[in-house]
């Protein structure tokens, strides 16, 4: 039997007295895109780095492609592709040579590497920039180049640590499109992000991580249904106006109310919120929308600043 791409049981990581990863367990399945969603400092990147064997496992069990990161890091790294959070392209080398030098680290023979790199540059729309210095590339191009670089060894698992942070909307959508294409080809992907739309776009399954633990896991659709409700009503009105409406909703099964400063969020699966929205008939005061991952996330992790 083929071992799962990643399997963790009670995975732990401490930095001094700070517990960054606190006993998490999960299994990534062959060919899926598995997302770690969470605020900064949740332990996502630390988990990813343990999987990538660039940070030693602190405790618990971790298997990557059936191998032990404690003893077989080189064998694991040979079969992973990594898109790091920070831009780590080699500024001393032009675009194409960045990939050639990187392929050499994996011991990919020159002729094979050259062929793959040409294909990859075409795929990521970088052929025209092949001889440009990296500093000439836009943010989106750099990201695409980093993704192209992560494919030089034809990895079995692609690990993406916040792949679109800092990109403009056009560039993000282009990166997403490329990643969906890779997923369609059957590449297993691991992704961390704090962008909810990114997780919704790309992930088959995801976990919501907070303070080193998982708060919830499932596919994006189920998570929204379970934690946000099908619709969300946002009431933007003064305290006196909202009081009778809240009175009306209180106690109805499946309705959750959250007051945050000047907005009231009403989460529900039924009809009561819809009726209120129809009655008020002013979206500026009562705005009805589908639930999304952001609702799930904020409900689970709280709305206070985390830093």
């Amino acid at each position, binding site marked *: 039997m083929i071992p799962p791409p990643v399997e963790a049981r009670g995975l732990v990581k401490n930095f001094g007295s700070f517990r960054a990863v606190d006993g998490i367990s999960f299994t990534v399945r062959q060919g899926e895109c598995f997302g770690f969603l969470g605020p900064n400092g949740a332990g996502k990147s630390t988990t990813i780095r343990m999987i990538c064997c660039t940070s030693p496992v602190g405790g618990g069990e971790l298997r990557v492609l059936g191998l032990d990161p404690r003893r077989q890091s080189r064998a694991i790294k040979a079969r992973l592709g990594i898109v790091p959070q920070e831009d*780590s392209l080699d500024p001393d080398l032009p675009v194409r040579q960045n990939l050639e030098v990187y392929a050499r680290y*994996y011991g990919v023979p020159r002729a094979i590497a050259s062929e793959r790199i040409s294909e990859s540059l075409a795929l990521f729309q970088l052929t025209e920039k092949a001889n440009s210095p990296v500093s000439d590339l836009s943010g989106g191009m750099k990201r695409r180049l980093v993704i192209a670089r992560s494919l030089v060894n034809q990895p079995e698992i692609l690990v993406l640590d916040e792949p679109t942070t800092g990109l403009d909307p056009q560039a993000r959508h282009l990166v997403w499109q490329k990643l969906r294409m890779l997923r369609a080809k059957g590449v297993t992907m691991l992704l961390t992000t704090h962008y909810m739309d990114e997780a919704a776009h790309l992930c088959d399954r995801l976990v919501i991580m907070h303070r080193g633990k998982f708060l919830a896991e499932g596919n994006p659709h189920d998570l929204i249904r379970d934690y946000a409700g099908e619709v969300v009503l946002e009431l933007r009105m003064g305290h006196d106006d909202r009081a009778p409406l809240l009175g009306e909703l209180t106690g109805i099964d499946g309705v959750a109310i959250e007051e945050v400063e000047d907005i009231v969020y009403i989460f529900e699966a039924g009809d009561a919120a819809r009726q209120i929205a129809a009655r008020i008939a002013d979206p500026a005061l009562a705005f009805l929308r589908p639930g999304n991952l952001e609702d799930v996330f904020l409900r689970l992790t709280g709305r206070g600043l985390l830093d």
Partner: protein
Amino acid sequence: MTAITTRPDLSAGSYRVWQRNRDVQFRLWRTELIGVVVEPFVVILALGLGLGQFVKLSSGEEYVAFLTPGLLAMFPMFAAVFECAWGSYVRLEMQHTYDAIIATPVSVDDVITGEILWGMTRATVNAAYILIVAIVLNPWLHMVESPWALAIIPLSFVPGLLFSAISICFASLARAMSQFSYFFNLVINPMFWFGGAFFPFDELPHWAQILGWFIPLTHVVELYRGFLKGQFEWSMIGDFAWVAAATFVFYWLALAGMRRRMIQ
């Protein structure tokens, strides 16, 4: 403590890192060449011929000839130091080059070993160039007295490794680029002036000679002096052993320092 007791985890990856630096060098050599080419001429002219007119050594030797082993030791030292102190720090901290490399099947030990081998390469190329300059100028300046001087090229591997390793040790501790001024002013610059390159040690007071013994460059200079003259003394074995032993120690410390820094 585990960082210092671990055996080096090495592979062909060290060579790949060396290749990376070589490829970058092939792209950038034009900008760096001029300094390397001109430097020894300036020193030979200014110190060897200029200051040398006023210097009478008790050995009767011409000052420019006395200076030659120092040139062969110092400039390669600078080449290794610039590559492995500033250069390594930039690749480690600013460019994240090391982070990118250790995500591949290349270990931290491979990276550091490759960097040190590259620093050594630059030092040796530099030493070879200065030796060629000295040989070309020999009919006028008599800087090289024996064909044994050619042995300096392979010998320069060892100090090249040593100065690279010392530099990496410091880079592994540095928290900001500006801290390198400490390294330069407290380590490299004193070594440059007091490493036995500019004045003979044997006429200095005893305490100064003892101090000089602790400076790595002194031993390199003494070793090269013997080979340039073709006069061999037993103490040269001691000089070589000193440099080789220090190389081993600093290589080990460089690995430990960078593991501590990069593996968290």
